[in-house]
């Protein structure tokens, strides 16, 4: 059941009904699956169907459960809907409005900050899309992968689950989420070990996107108490060192945010703007212009 598509879950009939329906039912199911007729989040089986002209940018929100990935997406979507634009890009469409609305629903929380709702489940489809448009550069498509943290937890102990992941390695941007609340408390040691193990296991299997742009996001920073606390600072640095070592890449930018609070939250807005802005595109290969390459060679 874990690996089922939400389309499967919606289309699934009870056993009794199943018995009554025949081949026509199977045909209907196949045709429904072939057609994206509603806007839930997409799965690995159908995310490629949305590509039209260029490969979209894939953002992978990476982290164990309870680090605020879904809240982050819900807040991003909320801001885009309220403001209509971000970083000079207008939010014009999505293939996954229902999936995004569900993230907003999941980020609802009570006054003590605890979530009122169930969190993203293992069977939830991970892919959400944002069609953005720039006045000069035109349209671009962003695909967000918001997978349940439990799935990442499974990767630590279940090899068969780990090797099924087809997303992380192909990320253009990898957003590494850490629950800042856990940095100064008792669960820190456990959390650090699990996070380190998860990254090591992915590296062992060559499943990390070494060329992706990476961001270290210490989320729920409003809950850390004294941000100058030396234990907190030491633990933050330990996490940064683990990530740097795994990716053999020093200087990955770090962000300290509270993705839940949308009121005058400059840190969060700044991070949203950074990720919405396109990455610097590669320079065009001069060899494609064979005429000028030839002129140059003959000079």
């Amino acid at each position, binding site marked *: 059941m874990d690996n089922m598509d939400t389309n499967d879950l919606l289309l699934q009939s009870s056993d009794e009904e199943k018995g009554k329906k025949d081949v026509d039912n199977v045909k209907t199911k196949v045709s429904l699956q*072939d057609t994206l007729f509603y806007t839930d989040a997409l799965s*690995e089986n159908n*995310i*490629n*169907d*949305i*590509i*039209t*002209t*260029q*490969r*979209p940018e*894939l953002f992978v929100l990476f982290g164990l459960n309870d680090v605020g990935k879904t809240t982050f997406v819900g807040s991003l979507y909320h801001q885009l809907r309220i403001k209509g634009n971000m970083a000079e890009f207008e939010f014009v469409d999505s293939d996954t409005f229902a999936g995004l609305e569900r993230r907003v629903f999941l980020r609802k929380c009570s006054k003590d900050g605890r979530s009122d709702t169930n969190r993203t489940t293992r069977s939830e489809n991970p*892919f959400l899309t944002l069609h953005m448009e720039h006045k000069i550069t035109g349209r671009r498509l962003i*695909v967000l992968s918001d997978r349940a943290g439990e799935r990442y937890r499974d990767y630590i102990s279940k090899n068969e689950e780990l090797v099924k992941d*087809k*997303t992380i390695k*192909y990320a253009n941007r990898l957003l590494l989420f850490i629950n800042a609340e856990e940095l100064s408390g008792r669960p820190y040691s456990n959390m650090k070990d699990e996070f380190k193990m998860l990254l090591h296991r992915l590296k062992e299997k060559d499943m990390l996107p070494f060329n992706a742009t990476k961001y270290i996001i210490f989320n729920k920073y409003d809950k850390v108490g004294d941000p100058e606390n030396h234990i907190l600072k030491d633990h933050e640095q330990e996490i940064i060192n683990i990530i740097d070592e795994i990716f053999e890449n020093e200087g990955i930018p770090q962000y300290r945010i509270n993705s839940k609070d949308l009121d005058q939250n400059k840190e969060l807005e700044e991070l949203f703007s950074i990720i919405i802005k396109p990455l610097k*595109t590669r320079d*065009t*290969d001069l*060899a*494609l*212009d*064979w*005429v*000028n390459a*030839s*002129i140059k060679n*003959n*000079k």
Partner: protein
Amino acid sequence: MNAMLKEMLNCVLIIPYEEDMISRLITINKKYADRANRQIIEDCVSAFVCGTRNDALTSFFTEQYIGLYGEKLVLPQVVFYILSEYVVYFLIMDSESPCTNSDKMMYSLIVRNMMLIRKDSYNKLLAPEFIPPMYSVADQYRKEKCQMEEDSDSKITPEIFESKNFVDMNFNLSEDHFQEIKRLSQKAEIWDYKELINNIKLKYKDKSPFILAYFSAKLLAVTPRWKYVDSNPEKTLMNILGSNLKKKKLENIKAEVMECDEYKSIDSKSKSSVLLAYMNSTENFAEIGNLNFSKLEFAIYIYYELFLEEQIKD
């Protein structure tokens, strides 16, 4: 070649296809490549360069897939563009390609000529890194074909200069003399080509740079009987035209060239002869009218379009 197609597809896919799927697509690709001809290649190149739907390839893949694997093939349109690119890449570059070197040269020129449409928008290409390796196949072929025949024992010259016929020379023409005759013919053709270059310089010296560019390219591509007399046409055009890089809009170049009394429209057979088609009608490739060309760029594109047209025998 599985790795190659996988790499190409990964340029457009968010999640890569499984190896099994890649193998299936390769199997169908080989079947499609077996029936390839110039028109099929032109449709493929038009798909991955210009983003034109390749209905023939799409239907073939869809029908073959259901026939071979009993499943309906549903792929995004961009994947068919990549499959089109892969077919061409396979035919030009792969050691298992069923094409002759001459076919490969023509397909390589089709790719080069069609790329004119992307002159100012190379960033719109889906898997661009696989394109430049296909260019060089045409140059390699030219390099082989422009080789002078090796010098052999001279049996025809100098006697022929003082004789009226072979009897006079006491000479029986046979296969033994082929090498020498070929070399003499090549030398004669080179001489004529040099004359042609000098005549072009003289005839068009007072004409505008783009008229000089057009007629230089046309005459150099069409006139020689030995089509590979010039090992480096770009260099020859540079020598005739000089290095002025001032650019002009294509629609203005077209107007200027067409005003010239000597201009006659040229019917083109290949879809990749984009400039020739544009010169013939405002409806053909109207979008390229705003592209800017230097006289040298314009001449090189025209030369290779005409050169390819000369090679097309069907």
